[in-house]
């Protein structure tokens, strides 16, 4: 088990280092990173000055050493737009995103497990067809558009719910629906196919032969086992939510790290974007690591694979 943890930890570190190098290289492949920072009307003098200030007049290997040292000590540069350390800006916004993502995830799970289960148990009936249609539609709907349509209907036409920024509990409704809908479609189909698979196993058949009631068979024997593959996907779901949060927070002017990512793109705030990407990578990799370790703990077969 220890060996497994160490190996997975090292793998995550490798991914992180590669990513850091890619970010470093990308800023230099296309010319001097200073040009990403300078306004278009900057003079030669300004440029020289900035090059010196950023240490970009030094040889590349020295720059790389400085960059890596900064990355390890948590210094990822200063945001141009906020004139503050980029990491600091990131952590100010992080709780807002975690709140949004947490509620959306809980909601998506609460909706998709019963729906997927129903679709599997009543396979081929109208319930299955309807849930299939919801899934197909859900996958085809771009979440930025869903968010705008929800705003139009519930904020502008009906005036029931606020359309932007944070505030009371009502402010959470539309953004979490937008973000969660993104997951429900896929998750529901996954639960369905997983339950179908389990319903076909011998232990479920045995439970039926023993004369257990339908409710006990479905809830106790089938669903519990069907959820194992779903739990392992938590890491992937989390990565999806981090992605989805960029679009959702942009639509709802939600002051989280997703919106921050968008701002960094729009204002070409390269140091901020680079910091946001590295920090998000650390979080996603960390979550994946935890999920994998948990899974290996639950299912010993994984450890020796």
């Amino acid at each position, binding site marked *: 088990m220890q060996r497994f943890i160490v190996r997975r930890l090292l*793998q995550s570190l490798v*991914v992180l280092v590669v990513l850091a190098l*890619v*970010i470093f290289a*990308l*800023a230099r*492949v*296309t010319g001097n990173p200073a040009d*990403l920072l300078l306004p278009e009307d900057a003079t030669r003098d300004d440029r020289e000055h900035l090059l010196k200030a950023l240490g970009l007049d030094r040889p590349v290997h020295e720059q790389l050493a400085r960059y890596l040292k900064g990355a390890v000590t948590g210094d990822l540069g200063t945001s141009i737009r906020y004139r503050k350390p980029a990491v600091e800006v990131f952590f100010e916004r992080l709780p807002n995103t975690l709140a949004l993502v947490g509620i959306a995830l809980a909601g998506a799970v609460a909706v998709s497990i019963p729906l997927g289960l129903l679709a599997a*148990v009543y*396979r*081929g009936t109208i319930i299955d067809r309807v849930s299939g249609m919801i899934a*197909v*539609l859900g*996958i*085809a*709907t*771009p*979440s*930025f*558009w869903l968010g*705008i*349509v929800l*705003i*139009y209907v519930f904020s*502008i036409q009906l005036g029931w719910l606020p359309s932007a920024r944070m505030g009371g509990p009502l402010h959470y409704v539309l953004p979490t629906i937008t973000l969660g809908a993104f997951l429900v479609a896929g998750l529901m189909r996954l639960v369905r*196919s997983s339950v179908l698979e389990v*319903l*076909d196993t011998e232990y479920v*058949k*045995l439970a*039926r*032969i023993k004369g257990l009631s*339908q409710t006990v068979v479905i809830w106790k024997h089938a669903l519990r086992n069907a959820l194992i593959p779903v739990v392992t996907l938590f*890491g*992937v779901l989390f*990565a*999806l939510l*981090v*992605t989805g949060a*960029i*679009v959702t927070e*942009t*639509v709802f002017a939600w002051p989280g790290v997703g919106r921050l*990512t*968008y701002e*960094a*793109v*729009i204002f*070409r705030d*390269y140091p901020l*974007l*680079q910091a*946001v*990407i590295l920090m*998000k*990578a650390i979080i*996603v*990799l960390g979550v*994946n690591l935890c999920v994998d370790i948990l899974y290996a703990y639950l299912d010993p077969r994984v450890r020796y694979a």
Partner: protein
Amino acid sequence: MALDTAPATDVEIVDERRPRDFSRLPWTSFVIITVLVVVAVFAPLIATHSPTEQSLPDKLKPPAWQEGGSTEHVLGTDMLGRDLFSRLVYGARVSLTVAMFALLSGGLIGLAIGIVAGYVGGRTDSVLMRVVDATLTFPTILIALLLAVSLGAGLRTIVLAITVIIWARFARVVRGEVLGVKTRDFVALARVHGCSDLRIMAIHIVPNVMNTFMVLLTLHIGFVIIVEASLSFLGAGIPPPTPSWGQMVADGRSHIASAWWLAALPGAAIMLVVLAFNLFGDWLRDWLDPRLRQV
């Protein structure tokens, strides 16, 4: 003791739908996709106006069926007085072009890596699959945004960005297929015959994973269109004034209260097209390669 002969239970396990049902053609999808392709190819003939020509006196005109609309601008105009219908028509071109190039590059890279990983096996395979796993669990859209900012927005950047996002999905499935194909007799025979590994991969393996590859391509068209639209929405897609559906939704967002059509119609176009391609992909999968259903 085998339990396969268990007596009938109270839950009826319905048979898979019979092949006859699957071969029903998805006509709706065909029609939508055909219209899309025709519109994209013949955009200049179909559009009623230039997609980029501004006319401020005509700005924010509603669609023809609404009060204040006219048949001059069938679907209304945007905040710069550009004709929405013509922009949608040209936007179809952008979506399809990006999807085509991105799928070809991402798909071919994934195909090559999947074949090498599956055929060569051993350490090569485990290293490559590690990379694939890392890519799949990582929110690759972040890399796409990074590319857009550092390389500058444009067709090449967005194709590269989407390639980064999708190649791993292809590689993983193709590798799985190759693992099966390479144990077949004709591969052993080819080896006995003295074929080089490269030749076996190119001549004997590739044709046998083609069905899977085509199905994967089709199943990913919708996904790629959504990714392109999302990147454009975030300002990291094809730069203006070239109309793209995602960017049109983004532009329309600030006018949603007064001009709903600006955001709603391009979004509906995305949804319709993605829906059509997904249904078509599902149908193709069931027809060519039903085992892929779990993917």
